[in-house]
C-alpha cells in the first residue's frame, strides 16, 4: 500500500522479538514475555490512576471548581490515595449472591479490556502482538466485555442490578453492529485487518478525511457506538446512578468495584486508542500533501508521542461528552441505534465501497 518515496515504517512487535529469541535462547523469550506482562500490568494501573485523576480534574474545571487539591501538588497523588482506600475496603458479597459469578464478573470485564490493550499499536516498536485478524479480534472482545457486566448484574441478586445488567446487554449488543460497520469501512480502505497495517496505510493521510466524508461519518458513528459500548454518559443507562443506583455494580464494593471502575476508565483509553488507530493515523505523524518542510518537522516527533497526543485529545472529547449531556432513556437509546445509526452505517458502508471501486481518494494510496 506504500506509495513510492515514503519512508517505510518497520513494525516490530514484542511478540516478534520474543519469537526471535525463542529460536536461540528460549529463556530469554520467557523472561521477555514476563517483563512485557509486568509492563502491561503497570500500564493498566498507571493508566487507570492517570485517567481517573484526569477525569476528576477535567470534570472539576468544567464545573467551575478545582477538583482534588489536597493530596500532593494540585491533588496529583489523589488517585494513589483512592487506590489504597479501595484496596483496604471490606469486600462485601451479598448473602444470596451467586458467589462464583459475583467474583467472575469484574475480573472478566477487566481481562477483556487488557486483552484489547495488547493489540493496540502504540508505536512501530511498541505493540504486544500484531494479530493478523486485528479488527475482528477487537470486535469479538468488545462483545465479550458485556458478559462481565451481565454476570455482575445477574449474580448480585438485586433487582436494580439485574435491570442494569439487562440494559447493558441490550445496549452493547445493539451498538456493536454500528461499531462494526464503521470499522469495516476502514478495513475496506486499508485492505487489511491487521492494526499495524491499517496504521501504515495512513502514511499519506488519515482515513478520517481522505474519502469525501465517508471516513468522517464512520468515525462519528464509531465514536457514538463506542461511547455506548463503554457505558459512558449520555449512554450510561446500565449504571444510571440516579435511577438504578449504580445498576450492575450496586452490590460491589472494595476491590471488585475497583476492577469495574478501572475497566471503565481503561475502556475509555481503549476506545480512544481504537479511534486513533483506525481513523486518525495511529502513531503516524500528520502529513499534508507537498508541504515537505512541515512534513519533515512533524516526522521529528516520535510516533509514540503522536499516538499519545491523539489519544489524549480523544479521551478529552469523551470526558467532554460526559460532563455536558444528560442521560438517555432505554427506548430512546434503542431507537437511535436501530432507526438512525444502523441505516446510516449501511449507507456509509455502501458509499465507501463505491469510493474504493472508483478510487475517489483525496490522496493517492
Amino acid at each position, binding site marked *: 500500500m506504500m506509495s513510492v518515496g515514503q519512508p517505510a515504517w518497520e513494525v516490530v512487535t514484542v511478540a516478534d522479538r520474543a519469537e526471535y529469541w525463542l529460536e536461540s535462547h528460549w529463556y530469554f523469550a520467557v523472561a521477555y514475555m514476563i517483563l512485557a506482562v509486568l509492563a502491561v500490568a503497570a500500564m493498566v494501573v498507571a493508566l487507570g490512576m492517570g485517567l481517573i485523576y484526569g477525569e476528576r480534574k477535567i470534570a472539576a474545571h468544567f464545573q467551575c471548581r478545582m477538583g482534588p487539591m489536597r493530596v500532593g501538588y494540585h491533588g496529583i497523588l489523589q488517585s494513589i490515595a483512592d487506590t489504597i482506600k479501595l484496596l483496604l475496603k471490606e469486600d462485601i458479597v451479598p448473602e444470596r449472591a451467586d458467589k462464583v459469578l459475583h467474583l467472575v464478573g469484574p475480573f472478566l470485564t477487566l481481562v477483556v479490556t487488557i486483552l484489547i490493550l495488547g493489540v493496540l499499536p502504540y508505536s512501530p516498536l511498541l505493540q504486544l502482538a500484531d494479530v493478523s485478524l486485528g479488527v475482528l479480534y477487537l470486535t469479538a472482545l468488545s462483545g465479550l466485555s458485556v458478559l462481565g457486566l451481565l454476570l455482575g448484574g445477574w449474580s448480585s441478586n438485586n433487582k436494580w442490578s439485574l435491570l442494569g445488567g439487562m440494559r447493558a446487554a441490550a445496549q452493547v449488543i445493539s451498538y456493536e453492529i454500528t461499531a462494526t460497520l464503521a470499522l469495516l469501512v476502514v478495513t475496506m480502505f486499508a485492505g487489511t485487518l491487521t492494526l499495524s497495517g491499517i496504521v501504515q496505510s495512513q502514511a499519506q493521510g488519515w482515513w478520517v478525511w481522505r474519502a469525501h466524508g465517508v471516513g468522517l461519518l464512520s468515525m462519528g458513528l464509531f465514536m457514538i457506538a463506542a461511547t455506548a459500548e463503554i457505558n459512558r454518559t449520555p449512554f*450510561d443507562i446500565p449504571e444510571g446512578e*440516579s435511577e438504578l443506583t449504580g445498576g450492575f455494580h450496586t452490590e460491589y464494593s472494595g476491590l471488585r468495584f475497583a476492577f469495574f471502575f478501572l475497566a471503565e476508565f481503561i475502556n475509555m483509553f481503549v476506545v480512544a486508542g481504537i479511534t486513533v488507530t483506525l481513523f486518525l493515523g495511529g502513531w503516524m505523524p500528520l502529513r499534508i500533501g507537498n508541504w515537505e518542510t512541515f512534513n519533515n518537522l512533524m516526522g521529528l516527533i516520535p510516533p509514540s508521542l503522536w499516538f499519545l497526543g491523539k489519544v489524549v485529545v480523544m479521551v478529552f472529547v469523551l470526558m467532554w461528552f460526559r460532563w455536558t449531556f444528560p442521560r438517555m432513556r432505554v427506548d430512546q437509546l434503542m431507537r437511535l441505534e436501530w432507526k438512525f445509526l444502523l441505516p446510516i452505517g449501511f449507507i456509509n458502508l455502501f458509499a465507501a465501497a463505491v469510493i474504493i471501486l472508483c478510487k475517489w481518494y483525496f490522496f493517492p494510496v
Partner: protein
Amino acid sequence: MSVTVRTLSELLMPPSVADSPLSTQEYFVNMGPQHPIAHGSLRIVLLLDGETIRKVIPVPGYVHRGIEKMCEHMNYRKIIPLTDRMDYLSALMNNWVVARTVEMAAGIETNARIETIRTIMSELQRLQSHVLWWGVLGMDLGAFTAFLYSFRDREIIGEIFEETIGARLTMNYIQPGGLMYDILPDFVSKVKKLLGYLRPLINEYDALLSGNAILQERLRNIGILDGKDAISLGCTGPVLRASGVPYDLRKVEPYGVYDKVDFDVVIGTKGDCWDRYYVRMEEMRQSIRIVEQLIDNLPAGPYMVTKYNARLKLPKGRYYGQVETARGVLGAFIYSDGDGDAPYRMHFRSPNFNNLWAVTHIAPGWRIADYISIQSSLDLVIPDIDR
C-alpha cells in the same frame, strides 16, 4: 358503617407467581428510602412489569417529627423556628405563613417596609429554591454539571441571607409583627449586584440544559397531568400552573406587596414534565423582575411593630392563612381556644404532601427512567411531606 383498615404489607403481597418458565411476572421494587431520586428519605414502592411502571405506592414518614404536636406546646414565636424545618428550601415563606396567619388573627397591622422586605426575601428564596431544583433535575437526568452550576449560584444568594439573617437554611426571620432583624446598609447594593449576575445566568442555564436534545426527549410529552386532574389531586404551585391553571396566590389573593408589583403568572399548556420544567425557569425570571421593582425604593419605618417579647394571644377561633412557596400553596390552620398563648391545634397544609400523590396518577404506564423525570419535575422536599 364499617371501616376497613389496611396495611402496607398487605398491599405488597407478591403478585401472581409465574406457572411456566416462559411466562412473565410483575415485581415490586423499593425506590428509597435510600435512593438518589428520593432527595432525602422517601420510599416509593414500584410495581414493575419489566421496566414499565404498573403502580406507584409512596410511603412517606421517614422524617416525620410531629411538628404539629410540638406546636401545641409552644407559643407562636417558638413555632417559627419549627417551620424552618419543614420545607427547608422555602424557610422564609414557611415563617411568613405563620406570621401572616397570626397577624390576621390578632389584628396586627404591619408597615410597608416590613411587607416589602418580606416580599424581597421570599422572592430571593424562591429564586434560590428554583436554582437548586434546576440543578437537581439535571443531576437526576445524568447531567451532573448542572448540579454544580446551580450550587455555585445558590451560594451567592445564600450569602446575602447569611449576612442579613445570620443563617443560610433555617432562617427564623419573619416573625409575627415584623422581622427578626433590619437589613444591613449595603443590602440594596448587594442584591442589585446579585440580580445583575443572575439575569444572564438563567440564559446560561437554558443554553446548558434546556436546549439539549436529550433533555427535551426526556421531558417532553412525559408524565402528562391535565388541569382538571391536577386540581382534583390538590396540586398547587408550578405543578398546577404547568397544567394550565393560572392559580398563583401572589396574583389571586395578593399578600405582602405583590399587588403593587408587576409580574406574570407563568402557565404551561400541556402539563408534561417539560411544562413543569419551563414554568420554573420562567418563574426565576419573574422573581428577578419582582425584586428589581422593589429593591430601589424601600419604604422607611421600623422593622418590628410589636415588642419582640410581647405575649401573642389569639382570640378563640379557626384561622387559616396561606402563602405561595416555591412549591405551591402552604397553608397554616390555627385553632385557638382563647386561653394560653399556644395554639390548641396547629396544622400545616403542605404543598409537597399534596403534590406527592400526583405521581400515583401520572406515573403508571411510564418507564423507570421517566419516573425520574416525573418526580424531579414535581420538585418534592421530603421533610415538608412528613412534617
